[in-house]
C-alpha cells in the first residue's frame, strides 16, 4: 500500500490553473521530493493531499483511502507559511498544538521537553513566541511537526531561515526519521538538498508534472555522454573518441564530451595509452539543479 496516491488532480483558482492533472505516489519509508520553482503549485498540491483544499477533479488517497480526522494524528506537517501563536509562551504553544494531535498532557510535556533540549530551545521555553528569532521559531515549528511521532511527515521548504548548522541538524533528523521507518515528503526548490536526501521525486512546473521517478533513474536519463577528469597533464587537442573538452573552474579539472559510440571504459584506456596521469575519472552526472533548469526552461538540450 502506498502512503500517498495522487491521481490526476487539478485545481483552478479563479482563472489561474494551479494544478493540471498531477499524479504521483509516495511509498512507505522513503523520502520523496516534491520539487518545482516558486509558484509551480507545490504548496497547492500539498494542501490538496492534506484535504485543506478540495481538488476540482482527481483524487487523493492517504494510507489507502480518503482523509479522515483520525489520520490527521498520523501526519506531521510543516507548512511553508510558518505559524505559531505569537502571544503565548513557547512551551504553552507547543503543548497546545501537541494536544490537538492527540497527545495526552503528560506525554506531550515529556516529549516537548526532550525536543526543546535537543533543539537548544530549553532556556527559551518561557518566552513568548514572538520574542524568539526566526530560526528558533523554525525549530519550534519542527517540534510541532514531529512531536506526535507521525507516520507521514510532510515538510514544505524545511531549510528556509536556517543557518548551516541547523540545516545539518534538520537533515540528520530527517534521515533519523527515515531510519525509523517514517515516510517523508519534502517540498522544496533547493535541489542540492534533494540530491542528498531524496529517494524519489516529482518535479512540477506551472501546475504540470514534468519529471517523476527515482532520483538515480532521473539522473541517469539526463546524463549525457560525458566524463570528468582531473589531471595535472595537458589534455591533447585531439584524442580518439573525444568530441570536445572544456576546463571547469579548476584548471586541472576537465569535462570531456565523448563520441556517442565510445564508452567511458574505452576512453579511459585511450587516456592511459596517451600516458596522461589521471587523478580522478568519473562519469559526469548532471546535478538536479541542472536537470531542473533544463526541464523548466526547456531551452537547453540534453546534458552532453
Amino acid at each position, binding site marked *: 500500500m502506498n502512503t500517498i496516491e495522487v491521481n490526476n488532480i487539478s485545481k483552478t483558482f479563479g482563472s489561474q490553473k494551479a494544478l493540471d492533472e498531477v499524479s504521483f505516489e509516495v511509498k512507505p519509508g522513503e523520502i520523496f521530493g516534491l520539487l518545482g520553482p516558486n509558484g509551480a503549485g507545490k504548496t497547492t498540491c500539498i*494542501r490538496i493531499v492534506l484535504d485543506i483544499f478540495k481538488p476540482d477533479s482527481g483524487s487523493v488517497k492517504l494510507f489507502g483511502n480518503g482523509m479522515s480526522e483520525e489520520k490527521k494524528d498520523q501526519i506531521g*506537517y510543516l*507548512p511553508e*507559511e510558518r*505559524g505559531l501563536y505569537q502571544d503565548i509562551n513557547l512551551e504553552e504553544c507547543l503543548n497546545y498544538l501537541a494536544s*490537538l494531535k492527540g497527545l495526552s498532557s503528560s506525554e506531550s510535556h515529556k516529549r516537548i521537553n526532550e525536543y526543546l533540549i535537543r533543539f537548544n530551545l530549553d532556556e527559551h521555553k518561557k518566552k513568548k513566541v514572538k520574542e524568539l528569532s526566526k530560526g528558533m521559531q523554525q525549530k519550534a515549528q519542527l517540534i510541532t511537526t514531529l512531536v506526535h511521532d507521525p507516520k507521514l511527515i510532510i515538510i514544505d521548504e524545511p531549510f528556509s531561515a536556517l543557518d548551516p548548522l541547523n540545516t545539518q541538524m534538520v537533515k540528520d533528523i530527517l534521515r533519523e526519521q527515515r531510519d525509523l521507518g517514517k515516510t517523508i515528503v519534502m517540498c522544496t526548490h533547493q535541489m542540492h538538498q534533494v540530491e542528498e536526501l531524496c529517494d524519489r521525486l516529482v518535479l512540477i512546473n506551472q501546475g504540470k508534472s514534468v519529471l517523476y521517478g527515482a532520483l538515480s533513474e532521473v539522473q541517469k536519463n539526463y546524463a549525457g555522454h560525458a566524463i570528468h577528469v582531473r589531471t595535472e597533464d595537458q589534455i591533447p587537442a585531439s584524442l580518439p573518441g573525444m568530441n570536445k573538452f572544456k576546463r571547469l573552474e579548476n584548471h586541472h579539472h576537465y569535462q570531456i564530451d565523448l563520441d556517442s559510440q565510445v564508452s567511458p571504459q574505452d576512453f579511459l584506456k585511450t587516456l592511459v595509452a596517451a600516458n596522461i596521469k589521471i587523478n580522478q575519472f568519473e562519469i559526469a552526472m548532471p546535478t538536479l539543479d541542472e536537470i531542473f533548469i533544463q526541464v523548466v526552461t526547456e531551452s537547453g538540450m540534453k546534458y552532453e
Partner: protein
Amino acid sequence: MNKTWLVIKHEYWKQVKKKRFILAILSLPFFILLMVAIGFLSVIFQYNDSPVGYIDRSSLLDNPIEYKAEAPIGLMKPIEFIRYTDESEAESALQNNIIQALYVIDKNFIETSEIKVIANKAPDSSVNGEFYTFLKLNVLKDLPEEISSRLMEGASFEVKSTGEQTSANEDNVLVFILPFLVGFLFIMAVNFSGGYLLQSVVEEKENRTMEIMVTSISPTQLMTAKVIGNLSVGLTQLVVWILFGIIGIFSLFRIFPDLQSTKIDFSFLLLTIMVFIPAFVMIAAMMAALGATTTETKEAQQIAGIFTIPMVLPYWFMQVLIEKPNSPLSLFFSLFPFTAPVSLPMRAAFSTIPAWQIIITIALLIIFAIAALWFAGRAFRLGMLRYGKKLSLIEIFTQRP
C-alpha cells in the same frame, strides 16, 4: 480528550487570562460604583438635616399632626419641624444655627398661598416639599381618613393599550426598565463575544496557524470551538456584571425599601432567552465569517460596527414601540432578525404579542442563524488561507472550497 473541547478551553483561557479582559470586566462596575458614590456624596454634602422652624400666622397648624420628613438616604436623620411663636426667638435660633430655615406662613395663606422662607442659605427644594407635605397633612386632617390619605398618596396610573390584556403599571418600575436593560445587556454581550471571536479568527490568520490547525482538527470543529469559546468569554463578562448588578440591586433595596414590591415576569424572561440565543449564534457566526474574509484585526473591527447599528436601531424608535406596539414599524422591527432581539422584549413589555408573531420571529432567527453558520463555514474554508487578498461575497457563494 475531545479536540473541540481542547480548543474551547484554549480559546477561553487565552482571553480570560489577559490583563485587558480583567480590566474590562472590572472597569464597568467600578465606574458605576464611582458614579453612585459621587451621587451619594453629593446628596450627603448638600443635605442639611438640622431642624426647620416655622411660625404659623394662619392658624392652620394649631395642634399639628406629627410628621417626620423622610431623609433621602436611610442613614441620615429626618428633618424635624419646630414651632415658634415668637419671631425674634426664631430669628435668634436661625442666627445660632439651631434651625436651617424659618418658614413663615402668611395669615391669609389659603388665599395668597404665600410662605416666606428666611434662611442664611436657601434650603434644598426637597425641604420645601417636605414642609409643604406637613402643611397639607394638617390642612386635610379634618377629612375622613381614607380620603385624606388617598389625596396624600396621589393616583396610580395604569397604562393600557386598547384591546390588549397586558398592561404596564407605572409603579412597577422594572417593567419599564427591564426591556431596555436586557436589550442593552444583549448588545453588550454580542459586541464583546463577537469582538473576541473576530479577533481570535483574524489572529489565526495573522499568526499563520490556520494550516496547522486544520491539519489537526476539522474546520467545522475549529469554528464551533471558536464560537463557543469566545461566546463563553463574553458571557463570563456579562455574568460578572450581572452579579455586580444583583449586589447593586440588593443594596438599593436596603436603601430604598419601596422598590421591593416590584417583580419580574418569568414568561417575559423566557421569551427574551428564546430570542437571544439564536440571535447570539447568528451574529457570532457573522463575526466569524467576517474574520475569515478580512486580513487584519483593525479592518475587521471597523466592519463589525455595521452589525451593531441595526441592533441599536430600535432604541431610536423606542417611542413608537412603546406607544404603538402593534404598528407596522413595531411589527417589522420585532420580526426582522437584526432588530428583533431588542424590539421583541420591548413590545412584549407593553402589549400582548400574538403567539404566531413570536413563533415567526424565533423561526426567522433560527433560520438566519443556520444560514449564517453555513455562510461562515464556507467563508472560513475559502478565506482561511488567504493572506493578502480579501474574499469577496460572490466568491463565497460561487467558489468551491
